[in-house]
């Protein structure tokens, strides 16, 4: 899988030269003057020029590592895929890994250190730090970071602190896990991390928890969840009680909206049924009460095969009680010691720092890849406190809020530019290996720390990491690099001991509206906001792009007399309304990370509505993920909120677009219709027949496939204005549907119809069929009549209304670096050309060429979306081979084709969504 990689070789890459040489193909074709041939002086690539090579590395989210494989062509990393060996990747990726590659080439990145006197070189910054730190014991110096799981970083920090005992390291992740830790401490007397074995659970109860949603643990959890639901035998039933629809809620078998303050009552009821004593005053509205009743019923029947999970937003006591409940039902859960060794709380430590700074007790502050100015609760006045620090440096990739507030800001290298390592949420360590020299002269975290510790020895980052894993001999080191993952570093489960029964006080729904503040599924804690792909990626719940909206229930909307896109003012913010079915009354929801005020033209793009939607400003002084009571005041104004899908409800016959079945139920096969069409031309007997089957039951709407496709196929982001005009370029869209039988997600790429309606209507044979059943689109032949899309019942074709490939979303920054990300095997489409999903034909052709050249059998290629999918919902293969995945799945009783009655005979087909409502009440 990973080819052999020599560190020195990788590090010597000169990418910008290749950019200049115009590495990416372009359709602006014929008329363009010839590009000259520029061979290297000393050839590193040798006979491997122009071929994609794969290197193991690691990307991080919230400090946790997720194994990845970098696809590198002629020294340019062009895509990130998963690493099969890594427990937090399992070969798949999530949205954040997929978007990371664009960050690498993002023109908004900081390019040089800048100080009070403006742009400065590294030496000046170093001098400034030395002047302050040389000889000192670090008194009054603070290192502020996000979560750090990297062993070599931790070692490095420890090393620095042996020399400078006064140096304080404060770690505060924006989206922390304080409640979980505190809850565990209450229950077991020490912080422990809960790792449910989802596969073993027949019943899964999610109380205001969204494990299928974004986060460092999304991929492994979703995989286990989907595998279990795919497996034959007893179906798994997932209950969700939550204030606002999340991916988990949408995928659940039974879900109900519940005020966050009442979640504790639901848990108390459950605990009560398990003998936790009386839970008086723990009232629930009738419907949730009914649901909780069936939860209790199911839990009783599922001793040892059920798990209760509580969300980040709930207080520690609730987590503690959940721990007790789980122990009573002998839930399949591993408890491990926290992978993040820092015992302090994310919020309190940052609060401490804020007051210290305010009190002038901090002389030197180095912020390393953190953005406290954005996420610190407003009541702390963090920015003002920061003013009082004489010497403050922020190492960050982008000019974010903190970088703009500190005296100095310095470019931090991308993880594909620097050496390092990280642990996954289960403790497994993996290596971060650079693919290119820092493109914009940034420095990695290790190098940054070296500046904080001028007295320390200065081995290269590479040597530090290698030493960390004491890879003495080169062979061992190379093996480690090739594997990426370091075997046997996973944290072993520990016996938690008996859980103490903690009875939290019952909650009651306050009269005033409260606002829940979940992390954004596309921007996470806001670091995705600088990324054009992430911004243009539709929110899994509202399908909104380039900005956030305040989600309220239809009932509240009626009471307020507001409609979608009406601006409402509240607590100093103002955001447009999005009415969401299944939102609890009296609760509004505003995802975090939007409404950035710094970070570059993308983060602050028009349409993202600026600070008005910055949910962090609603954080209470204790930094919790609920606002206090607010009143929503309609302003009468409207704000445009671009969305890729307007409504999700399927009425009447339309429901057949998204069939939902009970476990074991089959889809009725439609009567085979006779057609008047004559037979098409015959195909070569041994030609593979490509097809795709998508399991809507496994799809969690995470959008990893959407962005994977974007990265693989040179699909440009086109910006809020264009999307607002009803145009979009995603070849693969993930539709969200709701109807009486249930709801869920349906990824829709090109159907590759065998009797494609788009082909015979084109006057110039731009869309034609290949012998392998591919519905090809020949860009250079297309003249842009758009007849194909007009006649496509699935509307999966995308048209370049403007010169999107050359589109510059980065304000007055030169977008040239972005072109270096482009896949040289895929044509860059010109203006006025129709494009669409090709089943990654470039991968198919590469595979065929290899087979032809080597005379070996054809290896079935993997499409980008398939590779990305965390739940393996997307399967691709050769229909002509009866043993292939797709051939088998097509025989599944849940198998169906979209709009089969039209007789287009799609090659992309689906497995129906399975929903286990048990005793029938189908709340959605």
């Amino acid at each position, binding site marked *: 899988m990973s080819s052999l990689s020599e560190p020195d070789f990788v590090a010597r890459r000169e990418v910008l030269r290749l950019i200049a040489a115009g590495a990416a193909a372009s359709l602006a074709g014929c008329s363009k003057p010839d590009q000259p041939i520029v061979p290297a002086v000393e050839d590193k690539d040798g006979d491997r020029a122009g071929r994609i090579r794969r290197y193991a590395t690691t990307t991080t989210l919230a400090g946790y590592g997720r194994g990845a494989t970098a696809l590198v062509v002629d020294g340019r990393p062009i895509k990130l895929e998963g690493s099969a060996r890594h427990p937090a990747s399992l070969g798949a990726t999530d949205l954040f890994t997929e978007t990371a590659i664009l960050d690498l080439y993002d023109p908004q990145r900081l390019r040089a250190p800048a100080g009070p006197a403006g742009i400065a070189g590294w030496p000046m910054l170093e001098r400034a730090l030395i002047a302050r730190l040389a000889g000192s014991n670090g008194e009054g110096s603070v290192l502020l970071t996000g979560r750090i799981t990297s062993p070599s970083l931790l070692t490095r920090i420890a090393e620095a602190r042996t020399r400078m005992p006064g140096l304080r390291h404060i770690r505060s992740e924006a989206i922390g896990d304080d409640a979980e830790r505190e809850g565990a401490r209450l229950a077991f007397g020490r912080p422990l991390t809960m790792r449910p074995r989802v596969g073993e659970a027949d019943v899964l109860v999610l109380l205001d928890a969204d494990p299928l949603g974004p986060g460092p643990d999304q991929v492994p959890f979703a995989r286990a969840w989907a595998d279990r639901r795919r497996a034959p035998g007893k179906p798994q039933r997932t209950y969700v009680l939550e204030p606002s629809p999340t991916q988990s809620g949408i995928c659940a078998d039974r879900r109900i909206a519940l005020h966050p303050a009442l979640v504790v009552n639901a848990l108390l009821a459950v605990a009560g049924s398990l003998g936790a004593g009386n839970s008086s005053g723990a009232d629930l509205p009738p419907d949730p009460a009914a649901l909780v009743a069936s939860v209790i019923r199911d839990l009783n029947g599922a001793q040892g095969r059920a798990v209760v999970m509580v969300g980040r937003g709930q207080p520690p006591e609730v987590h503690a009680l959940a721990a007790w409940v789980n122990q009573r039902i002998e839930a399949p859960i591993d408890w491990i010691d926290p992978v993040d060794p820092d015992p302090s709380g994310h919020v309190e430590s940052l609060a401490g720092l804020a007051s210290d700074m305010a009190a002038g007790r901090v002389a030197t502050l180095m912020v390393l890849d953190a953005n406290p100015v954005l996420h610190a609760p407003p009541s702390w006045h963090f920015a003002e406190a920061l003013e009082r620090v004489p010497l403050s440096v922020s190492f960050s990739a982008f000019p974010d809020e903190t970088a703009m507030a500190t005296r100095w800001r310095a470019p931090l290298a991308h993880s594909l530019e620097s050496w390092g390592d990280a642990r996954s949420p289960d403790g497994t360590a993996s290596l971060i290996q650079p693919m290119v020299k820092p493109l914009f002269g940034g420095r990695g975290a290790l190098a940054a720390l070296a500046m904080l510790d001028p007295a320390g020895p200065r081995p290269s980052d590479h040597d530090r990491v290698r030493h960390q894993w004491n890879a003495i001999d080169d062979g061992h080191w190379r093996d480690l690099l090739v594997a990426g993952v370091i075997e046997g570093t996973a944290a072993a489960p520990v016996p938690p001991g008996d859980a103490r029964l903690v009875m939290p006080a019952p909650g009651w729904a306050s009269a005033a509206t409260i606002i829940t503040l979940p992390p954004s599924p596309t921007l996470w804690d806001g670091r995705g906001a600088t990324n054009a792909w992430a911004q243009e990626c539709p929110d899994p719940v509202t399908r909104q792009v380039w900005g956030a909206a305040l989600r309220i229930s239809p009932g509240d909307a009626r009471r307020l007399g507001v409609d979608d896109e009406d601006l409402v003012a509240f607590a100093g913010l103002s955001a447009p309304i999005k009415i969401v079915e299944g939102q609890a009354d009296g609760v509004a929801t505003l995802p975090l990370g939007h409404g950035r005020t710094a970070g570059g033209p993308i983060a602050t793009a028009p349409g993202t509505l600026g600070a008005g939607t910055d949910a962090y400003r609603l954080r209470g002084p204790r930094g919790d993920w609920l606002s206090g009571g607010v009143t929503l005041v309609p302003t009468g104004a409207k704000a445009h909120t671009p969305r890729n899908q307007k409504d999700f409800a399927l009425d009447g016959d339309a429901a057949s677009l998204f069939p939902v079945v009970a476990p074991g139920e089959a889809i009725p096969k439609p009567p085979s219709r006779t057609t008047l*069409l*004559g*037979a*098409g*031309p015959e*195909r070569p007997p041994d030609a593979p027949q490509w097809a795709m089957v998508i399991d809507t039951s496994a799809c969690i709407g995470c959008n990893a496939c959407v962005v994977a496709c974007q990265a693989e196929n040179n699909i440009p982001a086109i910006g809020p204005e264009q999307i607002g005009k009803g145009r979009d370029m995603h070849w693969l869209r993930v539709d969200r549907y709701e109807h009486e039988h249930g709801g869920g997600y349906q990824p829709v790429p090109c159907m590759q*119809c*065998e*009797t*494609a*309606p*788009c*082909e*015979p209507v084109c006057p110039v*044979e731009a869309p*034609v*069929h*290949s*012998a392998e059943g591919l519905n090809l689109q020949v860009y250079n032949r297309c003249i842009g009549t758009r007849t194909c899309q007009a006649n496509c019942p699935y509307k999966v074709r995308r048209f370049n209304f403007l010169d999107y490939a050359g589109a510059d979303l980065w304000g007055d920054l030169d977008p040239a670096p972005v072109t270096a990300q482009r896949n040289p095997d895929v044509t860059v489409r010109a203006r006025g050309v129709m494009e669409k999903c090709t089943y990654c034909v470039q991968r198919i052709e590469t595979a065929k060429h290899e087979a032809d050249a080597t005379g070996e059998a054809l290896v079935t290629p993997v499409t980008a979306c398939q590779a990305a999918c965390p739940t393996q919902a997307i399967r691709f293969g050769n229909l002509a081979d009866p043993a292939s995945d797709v051939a088998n799945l097509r025989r599944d009783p849940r198998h169906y084709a979209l709009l089969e009655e039209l007789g287009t*005979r799609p090659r992309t087909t689906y497995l129906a969504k399975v929903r286990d409502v048990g005793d029938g009440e189908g709340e959605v």
Partner: protein
Amino acid sequence: MTALALASFADEAAFRAGVAKADEAGRRVVGLWSPYPVEIGAIGEGTAAPITWISIAGGLASALLFYGFIWWTATQSYPFDSGGRPLHSWQVFLIAPIEFGALAAGVAGMIAFIVRARLTRLHHPAFDISEVERASSEHFVFALACDAGDGGAVLALLAEAGAVHSRIVTR
């Protein structure tokens, strides 16, 4: 030496009468010009029937050729699998040839007409006769062959036939 007697008439009826008279008088009508179609017996250059046949033949032939061409491009030159439709989708291949056939018929007819009506002769001797010019707007004109000798008689005959104006031209 021969001469030409030219007679102009104000309207169709008189014109017809004049021609008839000249006929009876055994004079040979050598030319007729009218500002709109006037059918007078068998005088004038033969039938126009061939135009129909040439036009129809031209149309049919081109349509057939065109269909053959389409068949060749779609099934021989570069056969494409277009949405699994048959290579030779004759039903839809018929449409373009029909349209083109109609055009070809028109063109063929036009050419036939030009040849048949002896057009494109801009400097035809007839244009030297002033009467012919007026014939294109208001007058009906015919020419009789006669000898210079009996010019007078002819003029008398024409006058009596109701010619608004007549004269003898000698060559």
